[in-house]
């Protein structure tokens, strides 16, 4: 119906002859300013010609017209611009960017996309013109064609899986273009550039989406580890770490377990090392990262809040490259190289080395008694990918990831910074042996079926497991020994076909299926005394199946509009029926440099990540995922988001987004104040774990602003987030919403980077509200039938207060040089340069003289050094 209306409008406009009664119009313009010409015509005709100065000021025109028809005069004047006109009143015309297509579809951009090294055509590669939202897919011979263009300059973005994206500016008309794409890695030393986030014009209509590709990492502010993707993402608006530098990502006030992390299309269930200090996503190994905040395309689902979709590098196809580096936390290497003309590989590893410095085993002796104390902790991960291209149209890749953390302690109870006090044999000691990590296998096959259809299939196995062994001997007659293990085994396949029949329409349909097996076991012995012994032997196992189908369309009815409807259908063992989650995203280009986006959609989450809140025997470092069943329902959410992206000049980018999300069925602790405080607990059974939690509603809303100025050697970015995140649990008697655990009303981040030649420097600052805390407001005394009167603090409401504001300033400096054929880069990062002791937690205790307040502070000033060498 809408298309028909537009067609009628066009016909009427074309047929209508605008004759200016009694007025002749004479235009003689030779490379004249468009604005001057329009003013002259307006004066001659007596017709009001309306236009935005910013729209016409950049144009110079040539026209020779003599007559009395204003429409013909304007057509002549505007023929070499991308502008059109429209009569909006009896005596009023508007100059504007055409609503549908440029009237004279005269110009066509043609060319070929090839591999830079082999010159082979890259079938299926994409060409995209951000200003017009027009694009094309390379045919079997690598050729492409983009039509409907005007005589002007265009930015052309070319991309292909496994290759670096290339931006080129071309003037149309021109000779056929030859675009040579480099295999990923060439010219890029690392991957993610937060600065680019605000500059890039993504092809998607999704607000909140960030697409990260690999160019100039140097400008990214990082907290601790230069290679950590999470620490880079922290600088996006709306994203906070759940701790100061540790913990998962809280996206728009949600809990970290509402994020889906994908590596090579396989889910990663525990994406962190070192007690969540460092993420498993090592940017150097990644080539393509998409991060969706709130609004996802239909191909993604299963979590409420965010999706991180990352791909490993294929490996260079022109020549080998090796990279080694060491920093304060770990040492790493990466090697990528061609194997044959059609195959390449990438392999990377990193490992912490503190245990190698201080030693993990310490033989001790005192009074003839010998023992071996242990202080071992390390983490490591391996990433590898083998890519094979049997032909120009297909690609097969096999990927592997393994990351482990290993904590091995045997220590006496008396710990202090004076090692000589406790580095000796002890009869009473504790041992902790914790191991946890992920392992992922993934095989993908991509094939270009036709120039307009690409088929992809992935099979994966993702395994998360953790083992917590504890042995505590606090007296010579009592022992606590436990062995607790958790595992999650996800075996899945997914396939999809993407159709791009024209530049106007495209669609992606797909199907996925997964079997997820959850297992946990506890074998413990609590020997309080010789006769007071309790054995615990518990086992829990669940298996779930998830099947999902999705369809995601993309329709560009005009150069200004882009509409992306989507639908995801899911069924899950234990959940009733089939769940339908519709999504609709749309973008509208208000001006050439101003894009509006909006999205609405629903999400469902079938897995809940929970942790026991009572016993020290289990769930210390482990993550336990619990699937829905008859007792608990899935979490659901609906989100509405809208945003504006503006480039007021070539150097400035501004983004603004606002969102509202409402979630139901989110599990929160039934007893907010309960924390692990004893050996006994309700057990590892899923029902017991669920009994510690209750269902809640959550809502969050906010506004996110981001601005960036990138000019010459300078890059300045500022982001501001104003938001609220609240929860309410009727089961807990909560009639009103209250601040949720990760509510941060205000967050301001900024960075200033300068780089030139060999040097680069940056200053990064963060200031945000403190996290909510439950503050006592009074104290009282009360007794019991067996107890004396005791003193308590009255905490009338959960999260009724807030920790002090968090602020930090980081400095960074880098210098690079070449020595012996190697490119060497030295970096110095000063974390918290002002040594501000941010308050991360508070403990209030009633005492004889009043309230004792103990504060837990954040990290002090930390100098972190890294040296990196590339061969």
């Amino acid at each position, binding site marked *: 119906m809408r298309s028909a209306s537009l067609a009628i409008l066009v016909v009427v406009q074309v047929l209508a002859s605008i004759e200016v009664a009694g007025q002749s119009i004479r235009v003689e313009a030779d490379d004249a300013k468009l604005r001057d010409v329009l003013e002259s015509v307006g004066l001659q005709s007596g017709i009001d010609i309306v236009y935005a100065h910013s729209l016409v000021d950049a144009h110079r025109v040539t026209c020779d017209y003599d007559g009395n028809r204003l429409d013909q005069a304007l057509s002549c004047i505007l023929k070499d611009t991308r502008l059109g006109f429209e009569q909006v009143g009896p005596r009023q015309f508007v100059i504007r960017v055409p609503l549908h297509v440029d009237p004279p579809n005269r110009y066509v951009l043609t060319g070929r996309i090839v591999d830079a090294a082999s010159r082979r055509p890259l079938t299926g590669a994409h060409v995209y013109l951000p200003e017009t939202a027009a694009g094309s897919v390379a045919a079997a011979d690598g050729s492409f064609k983009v039509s409907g263009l005007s005589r002007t300059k265009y930015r052309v973005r070319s991309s292909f899986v496994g290759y670096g994206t290339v931006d080129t500016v071309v003037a149309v008309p021109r000779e056929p273009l030859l675009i040579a794409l480099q295999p990923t890695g060439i010219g890029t030393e690392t991957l993610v550039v937060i600065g680019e986030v605000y500059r890039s014009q993504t092809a998607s209509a999704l607000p909140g989406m960030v697409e990260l590709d690999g160019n100039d990492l140097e400008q990214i502010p990082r907290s601790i580890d230069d290679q950590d993707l999470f620490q880079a993402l922290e600088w996006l608006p709306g994203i906070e770490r759940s701790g100061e530098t540790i913990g998962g990502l809280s996206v728009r006030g949600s809990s970290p377990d509402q994020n889906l992390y994908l590596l090579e299309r396989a889910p990663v269930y525990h994406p962190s090392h070192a007690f969540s200090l460092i993420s498993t996503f090592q940017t150097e190994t990644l080539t393509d990262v998409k991060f969706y905040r709130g609004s996802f395309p239909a191909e993604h689902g299963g979590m409420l809040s965010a999706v991180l979709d990352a791909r490993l590098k294929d490996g260079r196809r022109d020549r080998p490259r090796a990279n080694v580096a060491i920093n304060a936390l770990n040492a790493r290497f990466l090697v990528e190289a061609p194997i044959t003309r059609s195959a390449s590989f990438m392999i990377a590893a990193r490992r912490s080395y503190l245990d190698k410095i201080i030693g993990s085993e310490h033989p001790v002796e005192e009074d003839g008694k010998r023992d071996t104390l242990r202080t071992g902790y390390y983490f490591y991960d391996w990433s590898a990918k083998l890519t094979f291209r049997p032909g120009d149209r297909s690609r097969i890749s096999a990927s592997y990831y393994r990351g482990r953390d290993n904590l091995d302690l045997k220590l006496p109870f008396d710990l*202090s910074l004076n090692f000589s006090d406790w580095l000796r044999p002890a009869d009473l000691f504790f041992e902790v042996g914790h191991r946890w990590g992920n392992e992922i296998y993934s095989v993908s096959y991509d094939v270009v079926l036709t120039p307009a259809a690409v088929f992809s299939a992935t099979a994966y196995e993702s395994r998360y497991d953790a083992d917590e062994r504890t042995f505590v001997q606090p007296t010579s007659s009592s022992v606590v020994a436990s062995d607790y293990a958790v595992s999650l085994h996800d075996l899945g396949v997914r396939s999809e076909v993407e159709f791009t029949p024209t530049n106007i329409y495209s669609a992606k349909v797909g199907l996925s299926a997964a079997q997820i097996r959850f297992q946990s076991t506890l074998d413990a012995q609590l020997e309080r005394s010789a006769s007071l012994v309790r054995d615990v032997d518990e086992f829990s196992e669940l298996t779930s199946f998830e099947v999902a189908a999705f369809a995601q369309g993309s329709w560009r009815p005009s150069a200004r509009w882009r509409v992306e409807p989507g639908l995801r259908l899911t069924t899950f063992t234990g959940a009733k029926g089939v769940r339908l989650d519709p999504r609709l995203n749309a973008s509208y280009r208000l001006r050439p440099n101003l894009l509006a986006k909006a999205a609405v959609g629903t999400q469902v989450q079938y897995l809940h990540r929970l942790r026991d809140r009572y016993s020290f025997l289990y769930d210390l470092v482990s993550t336990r995922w619990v699937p829905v069943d008859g007792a608990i329902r899935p979490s659901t959410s609906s989100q509405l988001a809208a945003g504006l992206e503006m480039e007021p000049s070539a150097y400035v980018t501004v983004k603004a987004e606002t969102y509202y999300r409402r979630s139901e069925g989110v599990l929160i602790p039934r007893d907010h104040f309960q924390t692990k405080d004893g050996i006994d607990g309700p057990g590892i059974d899923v029902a017991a774990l669920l009994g510690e939690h209750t269902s809640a509603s959550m809502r969050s809303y906010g506004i996110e602003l981001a601005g960036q100025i990138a000019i010459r050697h300078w890059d300045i970015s500022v982001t501001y987030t104003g938001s609220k995140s609240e929860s309410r649990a009727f089961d807990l008697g909560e009639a009103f919403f209250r601040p949720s655990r990760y509510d941060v009303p205000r967050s301001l981040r900024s960075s200033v980077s300068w780089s030139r030649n060999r040097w680069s420097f940056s200053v990064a600052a963060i200031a945000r509200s403190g996290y909510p805390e439950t503050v006592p407001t009074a104290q009282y005394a*009360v007794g019991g039938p067996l107890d004396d009167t005791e003193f308590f603090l009255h905490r009338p409401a959960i*999260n009724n207060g*807030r920790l002090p504001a968090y602020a930090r300033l980081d400095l960074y400096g880098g210098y690079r040089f070449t020595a012996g054929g190697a490119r060497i880069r030295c970096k110095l990062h000063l974390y918290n340069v002002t040594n501000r002791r941010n308050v991360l937690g508070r403990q209030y205790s009633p005492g004889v003289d009043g309230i004792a307040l103990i504060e837990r502070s954040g990290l002090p000033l930390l100098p972190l050094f890294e040296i990196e060498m590339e061969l």
Partner: protein
Amino acid sequence: MTRRRFLIFAAVAALLISACDSVQPNTSDQLVIEGFFDAGQGLPDLRVRKTVGLDADQDEVRDAFVADAVVNVRHNSTLVDYRPTEDSGRYEPSLDLSVQLKSGDRFTVSVSWNEQSTTGSGRIPPEVRLDSIMLSVPSEPIEAVLVDSLRLDSLGIDAETGYLYAVEATMWWLKTDAEDDYWIQAQLRPFTEFSSLVLDFILLPEQVFPEVEGSENGVSRSWTGLYAIPVADGEAPLPPHQLRLAVVRSDQDYADYVLTRGAPDRREPSSNLDGALGIVAGISVDSLVVSIDESYTGKRTRISGR
């Protein structure tokens, strides 16, 4: 208003609204009620206090009595007015009704003060009676690690090694027909108290559990706890001391109250009063105090026939 102005206004309004932080502590005084209706006893006295500011010392907190409250108790269908006693904060029945609380009796406590009103109710449980106890004292002290506290702001743990007698005590009490509805609080209270953070995980001087989870032995159920008596060295004899063994039968509300009393730095006890703090609960208590000396060491001693 032009569209541009409207958009600017909307953006600024959204910014301000989203940045507004409405989290504000509540500081008004609240009533704190304490009353335990003991099976087999008459209507109990009630204690009424109020909350005080965080800057008060513990004497001020303890003495924050409310002397001018309106207090009454409905026992089954009888409404009994309470009056304050000379001892501020204590309220007693205004009439000597010679009532004896029986299993199954219901009661409701109502307190009004300073425009606050609160009610709490409960039911009298079956009487609990300790049938017998057994003490098991080791022949010699054991070595143990003593840790006073784990501090939030320090990685260091100041611990030392000492010696103690770990004494096991078992209590038997008679079962009731309706034990599915009740919880048991079993407690060992040596008159020489001792606490160590690490040992608190191992020692078991008190436990609260559903009555049906107590060890069953014919007509009775039992519970075994463990407490410690510190001594100077590994050869020291067991110091003479007294031990109170107590068992309380009550309902879920009381169990929640007791289970949440143990961490005053983290939380306040659960309350069953509507709009006030504290507890009013129907309970049944039995306890026994025994004197223990060196003669108990190295053997098990059973005391029964109460």
